[in-house]
C-alpha cells in the first residue's frame, strides 16, 4: 500500500493533519502535507479505512491510497 500526495494539487488546507495528526503532518509554512509511515499501531484494515477517510476529505483531491501493492 502507498499513500500518494500530489504536491501540485495540495494547497495546505490541512484537513489531513487536523483529522489524523498521527498519520499526517504539515511540512512547511504553506501547510503542505506529509505522510508519516509506520506511525499507526492499527491493523491494516483499520489503517486503510482511516486513510480513505482522510483522502475523501481532501478539498483538493490530492491524496490517493494505492492498495495494489503489499503493505509498505
Amino acid at each position, binding site marked *: 500500500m502507498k499513500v500518494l500526495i500530489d504536491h501540485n494539487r495540495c494547497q*495546505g488546507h490541512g484537513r489531513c493533519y487536523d483529522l489524523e495528526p498521527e498519520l499526517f503532518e504539515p511540512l512547511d509554512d504553506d501547510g503542505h502535507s506529509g505522510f508519516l509511515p509506520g506511525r499507526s499501531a492499527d491493523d491494516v484494515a483499520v489503517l486503510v479505512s482511516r486513510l480513505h477517510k482522510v483522502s475523501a476529505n481532501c478539498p483538493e483531491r490530492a491524496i490517493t491510497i494505492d492498495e495494489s501493492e503489499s503493505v509498505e
Partner: protein
Amino acid sequence: MTESPQMTGCPASYADFDHMTTKPDGESPYAAYRELRAQCPVGRSENYGGFWVVTGYPEAYEILHNPEVFSSRYITFPAYPQDAPMVPIEIDPPEHALYRSLLAPAFSPRRTRETWEDPIRAVTNQLIDGFIDSGRCDVYKTLAEPVPCYMGTTLLGLPDEDAPKLLGWVSAVVDNSPSDPETPMIAMQQQYEYFAAKLDERRKDSSGDDVLSRLIRAEVDGKKLSQDELLGFCLLLMLASIDTTQKAMGSMMWHLATHPDLRHELVADPSKIPTAVDEMLRFYSPSQPARLVKQDVELGGQQFKAGDVVIMMVGAVDRDEREFPDAETFIPDRSPNRHLTFGGHIHKCMGAHIARLELRIVIEEFLRRIPDFEIEDETKVRWNPGQVQGYISVPIKFPAGGRA
C-alpha cells in the same frame, strides 16, 4: 448522489437575484439559494449591469481551479473603490505565487497553534467575564466582533484601540448599499491614509514579527514592495482577517443558540468540536467571491463571454446535494466535508488555520462556561447579506453567572 438540476436555458428567477439585498427580520438567504440551485447551478442576474451567479458545487470548483480563465483581478462586485488590487488575492499567476509566499510564515499551521492558541483562549475568557454575570448579551457584539478584531490587529501589529476605526471602514466598504457610492470611497481613502502612516512607522523600525514589519522587509525579485503593493496587502489583511471571521462566528453562535441538541452533544463530548467547526464553515460560508471571465467559456450549461463577471455564492455551493448528501442538515461529524468556504487551488485562504482556531476556541470556552443559552429577542436577530455574509446581531439570554 442526486440527479443534476435541469440545464435548460437560464431560469428567469436568477434575473432579479441581488446578493446585496437586505432581507427583513434577520432572515437568511438559504431558502432562496436552494430554489435557485434546484433550477440550475448557474444563472444570470440583470442587476448591476448583469453578472453570472453560481450556486452549484462542481461549477464553483471548476472556476476556482481555472485561474487562467477565471481571473481574480476583481473579486468584489460591484467592485470596491480601490486604487490598486488587493494583494495577493487579486493577483493572477504567475506573479501571484511570489507575493503569496512572503506571508506564509505568519500563517503557518504549526506556528498558528503554537503561537495563538493560548492568547486567543485568554482573550475569549476575558470577554466572557465581561458579560457572564448579566445573563444576557448580543453575542455578536460581545464575542464574535472582538475576538477577530484582537487577532487581526495583533497579527498586523496595530494598537488594539484602533479596532473600532478599522471596523468602521470595513463596514462602510463591505456592507454599504451600492446606492451610496460616497461612503465606501471616503472609508477606502481613510484606511489607505491610516496604513500609509503605519507603514512609515515600520520603515523606521521593521524588526518586529508582525505582518506589516514582514512586508516592509520583504523583497520580490530583489526589489522592495511598492507602496501600492503594500497597501494592497494591508487592505486585504484588514478585510479578510476581521470581517469574514466575525460573520462566521456570529452565524455559529446563532446556530448554537437555536440548536440545543447540538449544544448538548458538544458539551458532552468536546472532541467533536473540531469537525463541528468545519460543518459550521460549510453551513454558513461567509465569503462569496467574484471572478472576471478572461475568455469565452461554457459552464453549467451557460455561455460566458470574455469580460463577464461571475459571483460564486459559496453559501449556496456548500449546500449542493451533488457534493453533500443531506446538505441542508447540520451533521457535526460530516465526512467527507470538502466545503469551499476557504476557496481552493492557488487562492485558498491563507488565514484558514487561524480562523479555524478562533472558531474552535470560542465554541470550547463558551460552551464550557455557558452550556445553555437561547435567543432573547427574535426581532433583533440580523442577517447581513452581500459578499461577506452572516448573522451580525445575536441577542441571547442564559442563567447569569455561568462557570469561571
